């Protein structure tokens, strides 16, 4: 379908405001060119797009990033207590001085900008390739924009069992920064990696993470989108899973004026497992959108989506989740739950939990609930001497626990819970 004039204009305006990355003859230049062509064909998202029904894309596509005040952090950095390999970005640019030496046994780590001019690189088969696969049946123009214009990011190839997690830290230091990062992770057969991500990144952050998981490999991903209130983010994960591989991703989001996290998972090998979960707490002008698309294209795969949101003071939570079971993906086990707790009358939860199933021997289910804190439970706690504010927080935490429990590693699970708890306690004063 031809693009509307408004869409064409918005797309060209955005592209005109970009400074194009250095063009070259290398594989990366080709991938970028392809992505920009894709983007021009689909146009940037508009308010009338069905896939953006619940989230206004305006601030994410504007030529200039809306300003965001740098947030003063008054607590220990996230994941500080963990032994990890730190890679730090400041406003979307890698900062080697604050980072660890990027060497880890069983893992090759290269900076995107360092390999741009090489003719051959393993990432050639993945960079923008998984993103392009994820453009159908629904267009994800912000991801194509990212592939076309990302200047920085890491290419991580895991051949064994990484002994330490790789931790990507995104610092935000300029109130007008507009960051685009693109990472590619390839896990070879039987490899294992835990990837941690945290930090506000920039006033506006566009990030793509492409993950290719070979047979029998395991990928764990824990992300904390922090307390940085005014930042905006549009992130995409594109994951492709081989046979008997495992993909687990958890995201905690507290605040952030605009967040759109898309997760596109393709189960291409039999017996693969993909779990994706999120716990979000929003206050005030908080708009948080989880958009998940899981495609089952192999037999006996399992997918789980668990998303919980606690909203107050006009916060808006969005969940768009889809399980697509292709013809022949028999014995699929697909599960999806999206729940929200509205703590007051001004908050909203908008959901579209979708199933599209073309195989008959499957067990797919989804559930979605929205409501206030259960008055009886609150009364029970209060009658046992727990003050109302504390009782409410206790119930909020237990509500979010179902999503947090999706994190396999106990220490990480506790770290996330502690953050949620601290956020509530601070708010309580």
């Amino acid at each position, binding site marked *: 379908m031809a693009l509307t004039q408004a869409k064409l204009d918005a797309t060209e305006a955005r592209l005109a405001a970009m400074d194009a990355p250095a063009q070259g003859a290398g594989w990366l230049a080709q991938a970028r060119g392809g992505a920009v062509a894709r983007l021009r064909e689909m146009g940037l998202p508009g308010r009338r797009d*069905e896939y953006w029904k*619940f989230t206004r894309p305006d601030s994410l596509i504007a030529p200039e990033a809306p300003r965001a005040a740098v947030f003063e952090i008054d607590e220990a950095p996230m994941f500080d207590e963990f032994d990890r390999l730190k890679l730090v970005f400041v406003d979307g640019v890698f900062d080697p001085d604050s980072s660890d030496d990027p060497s880890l046994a069983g893992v090759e780590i290269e900076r995107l900008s360092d390999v741009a001019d090489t003719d051959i690189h393993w990432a050639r088969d993945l960079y923008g390739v998984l993103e392009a696969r994820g453009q159908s049946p629904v267009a994800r123009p912000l991801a194509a924009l990212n592939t076309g214009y990302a200047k920085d990011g890491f290419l991580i190839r895991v051949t064994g069992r990484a002994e330490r997690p790789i931790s990507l830290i995104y610092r935000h230091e300029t109130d007008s920064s507009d960051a685009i990062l693109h990472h590619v992770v390839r896990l070879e057969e039987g490899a294992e990696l835990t990837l941690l991500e945290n930090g506000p990144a920039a006033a506006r952050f566009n990030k793509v993470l492409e993950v290719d998981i070979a047979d029998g490999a395991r990928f764990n991903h824990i992300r904390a989108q922090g307390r940085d209130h005014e930042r905006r983010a549009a992130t995409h994960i594109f994951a492709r899973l081989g046979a008997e591989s495992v993909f687990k991703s958890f995201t905690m989001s507290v605040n952030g004026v605009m967040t759109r996290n898309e997760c596109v998972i393709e189960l291409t090998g039999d017996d693969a497992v993909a779990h994706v979960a999120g716990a979000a707490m929003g206050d005030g002008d908080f708009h948080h959108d989880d958009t998940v698309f899981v495609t089952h294209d192999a037999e006996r795969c399992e997918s789980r989506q668990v998303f919980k949101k606690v909203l107050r003071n006009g916060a808006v939570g969005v969940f768009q989740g889809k399980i697509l079971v292709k*013809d*022949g993906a*028999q014995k699929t086990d697909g599960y999806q739950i999206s729940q*929200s707790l*509205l*703590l*007051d*009358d001004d*908050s*909203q*939860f*908008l*959901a*579209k*939990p*979708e*199933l*599209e*199933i*073309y*195989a*008959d*021997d*499957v*067990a*797919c*289910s*989804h*559930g*979605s*609930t*929205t*409501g*206030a804190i259960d008055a009886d439970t609150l009364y029970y706690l209060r009658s046992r001497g727990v003050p109302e504010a504390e009782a409410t927080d206790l119930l909020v935490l237990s509500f979010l626990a179902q999503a947090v429990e999706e994190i396999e590693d106990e220490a990480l699970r506790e770290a996330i819970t502690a953050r949620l708890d601290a956020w509530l306690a601070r708010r309580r004063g």
Partner: protein
Amino acid sequence: MAALDKGEDVKEGVDQETVDAVREVGGAYKYGWETDIEMDYAPLGLNPDIVRLISEKNEEPEWMTEWRLSAYERWLQKEEPTWAMVDYPKIDFQNQYYYARPKSMEVKPKSLDEVDPKLLETYEKLGIPLKEQMILAGVEGAEDTAPAEARGAGEGRQGERRVAVDAVFDSVSVGTTFQAELKKAGVIFCSISEAIREHPELVKKYLGSVVPVSDNFYATLNSAVFSDGSFVYVPPGVRCPMELSTYFRINAENTGQFERTLIIADKGAYVSYLEGCTAPKRDETQLHAAVVEIIAEEDAEVKYSTVQNWFPGDEEGKGGIYNFVTKRADCRGDRSKVMWTQVETGSAVTWKYPSCILRGDDSQGEFYSIAITNNWQQADTGTKMVHLGKNTKSRIVSKGISAGQAQNTYRGLVSMHPKAKNGRNYTQCDSLLIGDKCGAHTVPYIEVKNNSARVEHEATTSKVDDDQMFYCRQRGMDEEEAVALVVNGFCREVLQALPMEFAMEAQQLVAISLEGSVG
């Protein structure tokens, strides 16, 4: 069902009874014959003159003609919707007839006695009794006059079964039974064309007030060219003394049917309305684009039941009806209630979302649906529950069953507006796939804008009423059996509310269990 007959594997755990029932329902189409009768057609295609012609044939006043013409103008501006998960060749709106009337209806018969016997035969063959005498005899206990199969199905209910029928044949209403008796109770039940002539004040007040003229492509088209349909007005405090029904029959070739139904239940009124439809077997597809509007004032209650059995196309997917229907109820008054029940077995393509606008405080909307698609059928159906008033409640139970190469989609919206304090919704949609070439899809939209509202959307079989489940499990049933029992029990209740004419069909549907179902 061709696919199953070829020995295709059926998933383990699916009841043979279910398979048989689906085969039976989706199998030989029983109503595929046609009536050989001389017809008057409007010229082929659509333009303002055709709109005027339809208006003229219906002897409509000027304001109605204008209403139609303005709808036609708007329709020209509108685009055909493409968001539904249905796929069909582009419809050529200029290559069909918009009005077809049996020649014998040129002079409107004064009573059913004057109606062309061929038409009466048609309805008799369909099992729709148009002779009051016969029905009354049945009521008075002379059961031998009722057909044997109907007696079996409606056992023990004969005494209470009386159904007034408005029979629509292509573009015209052939006749309406029990009008006199209904009139005594104050109920107006007639064809919409008659209502436009006889009760213009009611029609003017309500027509288009629930489904606005420019609501959507097909509703706008309908507003321009609707030829007939039914009109019901139940005055304040009146409980309609019998069930009302309309039976739609498409007979003419290459002709679209555009019926319009308007049901008004005034304060404290109650009416149960039933709708049935069939069409002959043909290789060419035919368009059916209806609009149904229901208005429920304070304390009023309307039950609307449909057994949709348009010709679904043959086993190769040839022919069938394109059923693009807009049905909406406005629960305008406090404590009003509307219940939609639909059994969707026919049509090649269905695009239908019977909805409730819950405007009045404490108003209630319910939607119960069983949609069965087989062979190459495609159904995209569901409901919208828009909660505007306080303490409004809605309940959605949807069962989709696909077989052959069919695609079955539930699409729904539950919207809790900021002022819908203490709004409640419970939604359950389950799908069952029989065979591995078909598809089942669920596309619910949930929008909650106040925190006293409670919305639950379930597509898991584990969330049938806990107490009932506990009761069954306690007596040794496993979970699946218990769910099937509970849900079947529910279906039975819904299906029994349907008129006797549909009873045999309904009985077959009851056997469908939910075993092996997916969300």
